[in-house]
């Protein structure tokens, strides 16, 4: 029977975690019960983007976008919408002017401002059905490349498109291809780096989960262009769903004659193997990643020789990040001029970002390069929740830097972010508000890199530890006047002398917060004051006798019995020596009688 409704159920990892599978099963049950199975198709797709609002559903042809759907909503959705054609208003995503969205999801600002190239299929097709990928033009670029283009032409297309590596450093992709193509040798290797290690980043995962074939196709085109016969996708074990869908896609592509030997009966052969990493941050660095693929311990080595000369098992190796691979087929199909017309002259194309932290719409977004941080955070991200003030945005994960409010109108491109002491990185964007202490944030990121340092070179192994010790001291109220200079000089030394990108960028969060939020460090050291009231050693709780009604709630919730008093008879007393600053009393007090203070002035 002619299918009249496509119900797309987001099955990205975030929606799976909020039980989208239960919603799908409940919908399937109701559709069956109403005898609609022949005319309504339920499709599991990859990530649609607004992860905060999951589980989400998208219904075509109307384009109704449902958010936070529960299994028990299935009855109403099927009876009202699928049967009678009345979308369930209470579950639709409301636009800021409270106009309910029934016609098109693209009217929601979150989607409206995006430009999806790499993610164009994510949330639109079933990633486990190769036919749906083919329906969107999938493998056509590979077919064109193998039958009508020379390897040289493809490399020139990549060079003139201006595509730069989406993994962080932004090296021109076409040049990398050219270097590997120029190498001789019977065996060359192509690698996909999907070892996404930044906390809060999930671009590569979402792409592999939502559109694995696009990564495979990109790698195949490159293998033909540079003359490689073997490919590896390096992905971390923490991404089980991505691994499953990728393996499934590889099997399907092989079964269709689109991967393996004699691809599309052109005589060209190339195959891909998935290598699962144990989740070490350093393995995102290319030489460490290569060591890990070879079965060695994942530690970096000095370059040169670069992987393009001597990579996996000594073979010339082309490594690109998963998102970079996702761009390739579009550039082959639509041309270099089309691609370079998007974004900025120096940073063409789009970039995928994982928005997280203190922002209303956390999730996965793709915008043209040159979009400003303000547009990303306020228009697409929906601003800061709870009416709080924006304080800083961290781009590039633990290797990146914090950008303050006065630079919100900076366009997002490789050079502009670098000038501010941050980096593009792989695309993690963490938004911070007035309740975040920048010293504490810097400490958090440094804890991460210190922990993830592989230990091979001294500056990274010992230097990050020294910096961390100083930061811990400052947040515990024992900062010394010379600490700020010390942090600066240690940071600079580590940047200049570390072996690999991990160490070279590890001090960035500290250096950038020192640059833009130096007065916060100063206040911690000089006045023992944490403005954001985060550093527990520098804050204390005080009961305001004028406001306190002696209701006894605070005393009952205190886990360490630091509060004393009799119900109905003020005053209540809080013993700072005993208090562990857990904040439960502040939450419990119905009158706001418990204040948090910091600094010697109070």
């Amino acid at each position, binding site marked *: 029977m002619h*299918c*009249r409704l496509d119900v797309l159920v987001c099955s990205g990892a975030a929606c799976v975690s909020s039980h989208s599978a239960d919603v799908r099963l409940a919908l399937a049950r109701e559709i069956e019960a109403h005898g609609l199975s022949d005319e309504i198709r339920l499709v599991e797709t990859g990530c649609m983007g607004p992860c905060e609002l999951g589980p989400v559903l998208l219904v075509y042809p109307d384009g109704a976008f449902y958010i936070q759907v529960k299994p028990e909503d299935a009855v109403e959705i099927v009876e009202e919408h699928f049967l009678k054609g009345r979308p369930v208003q209470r579950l639709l995503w409301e636009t800021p002017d409270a106009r309910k969205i029934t016609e098109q999801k693209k009217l929601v600002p979150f989607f409206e401002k995006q430009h999806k190239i790499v993610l164009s299929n994510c949330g639109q*097709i079933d990633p486990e059905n190769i036919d749906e990928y083919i329906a969107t033009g999938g493998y056509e670029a590979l077919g064109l490349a193998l039958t009508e283009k020379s390897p040289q032409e493809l490399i020139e297309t990549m060079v003139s498109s201006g595509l730069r590596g989406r993994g962080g450093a932004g090296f021109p992709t076409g040049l990398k291809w050219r270097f590997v193509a120029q190498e001789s040798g019977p065996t060359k290797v192509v690698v996909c780096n999907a070892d996404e290690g930044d906390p809060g980043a999930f671009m590569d995962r979402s792409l592999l989960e939502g559109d694995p074939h696009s990564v495979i196709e990109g790698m195949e085109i490159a293998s033909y262009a540079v003359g490689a016969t073997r490919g590896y996708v390096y992905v971390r074990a923490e991404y089980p769903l991505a691994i499953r869908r990728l393996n499934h896609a590889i099997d399907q592509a092989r079964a269709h004659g689109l991967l393996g030997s004699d691809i599309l009966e052109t005589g060209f052969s190339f195959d891909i193997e998935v290598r699962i990493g144990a989740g070490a941050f350093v393995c995102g660095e290319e030489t460490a990643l290569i060591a890990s693929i070879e079965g060695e311990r994942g530690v970096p080595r000095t370059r040169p020789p670069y992987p393009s000369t001597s990579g996996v098992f000594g073979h010339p190796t082309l490594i690109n990040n998963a998102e970079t691979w996702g761009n390739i087929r579009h550039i082959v199909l639509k041309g270099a001029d089309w691609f370079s017309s998007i974004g900025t002259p120096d940073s063409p194309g789009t970039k995928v970002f994982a928005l997280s932290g203190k922002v209303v719409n956390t999730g996965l977004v793709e915008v043209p390069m040159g979009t400003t941080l303000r547009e990303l955070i306020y228009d697409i991200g929906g601003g800061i929740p709870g009416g709080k003030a924006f304080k800083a945005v961290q781009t590039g994960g633990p290797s990146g830097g914090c950008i303050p409010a006065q630079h919100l109108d900076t366009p997002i491109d490789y050079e502009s972010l670098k000038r501010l002491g941050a980096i593009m990185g792989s695309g993690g964007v963490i938004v911070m508000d007035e309740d975040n202490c920048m010293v504490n944030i810097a400490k958090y990121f440094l804890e991460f890199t210190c922990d993830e340092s592989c230990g091979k070179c001294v500056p990274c192994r010992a230097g990050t530890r020294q910096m961390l010790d100083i930061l811990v001291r400052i947040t515990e109220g024992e900062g010394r006047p010379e600490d700020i200079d010390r942090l600066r000089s240690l940071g600079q030394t580590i940047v200049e002398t570390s072996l690999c990108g991990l160490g070279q960028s590890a001090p960035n969060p500290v250096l950038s917060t020192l640059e833009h939020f130096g007065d916060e460090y100063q206040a911690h050291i000089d006045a023992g004051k944490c403005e954001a009231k985060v550093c527990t050693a520098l804050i204390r709780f005080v009961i305001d006798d004028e406001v306190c009604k002696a209701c006894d709630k605070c005393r009952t919730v205190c886990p360490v019995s630091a509060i004393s008093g009799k119900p109905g008879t003020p005053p209540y007393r809080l013993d700072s020596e005993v208090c562990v600053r857990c904040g439960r009393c502040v939450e419990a007090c119905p009158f706001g009688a418990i204040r948090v203070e910091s600094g010697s002035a109070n």
Partner: protein
Amino acid sequence: MKLEELRQIRERAAKELSLRKGDARVKVVVGMGTSGIAAGARDVMAAFLDEISVRNLSDVVVTQTGERGLASSEPMVEVHIEGEQTVTYGQMTAERARRVVVEHLVNGNAVSEFAIEVRG
């Protein structure tokens, strides 16, 4: 598989995805309010879907709408064709639905016999 075979798969598979593209040439809107359903709109819709499938029409979407107020004419169906007038049919049956598919959707002639409104 050769490139031509890949393109054949694409042609076939693209039809399956046409709903998500939002570029259908023809839109059939079946009134599925309470009175529409009571008068047999479900059968009408099923007949549309079946006939469209039998005739392998890929550029048609079938959707529903609520109560229109003219209960005596239910089940009602509107046919929107790009660049043409919108035709509303009344007192539809499964059999009439099949005729609308053949005569109006395929051959382009509205079935005046049970058309109750033409506009646009």
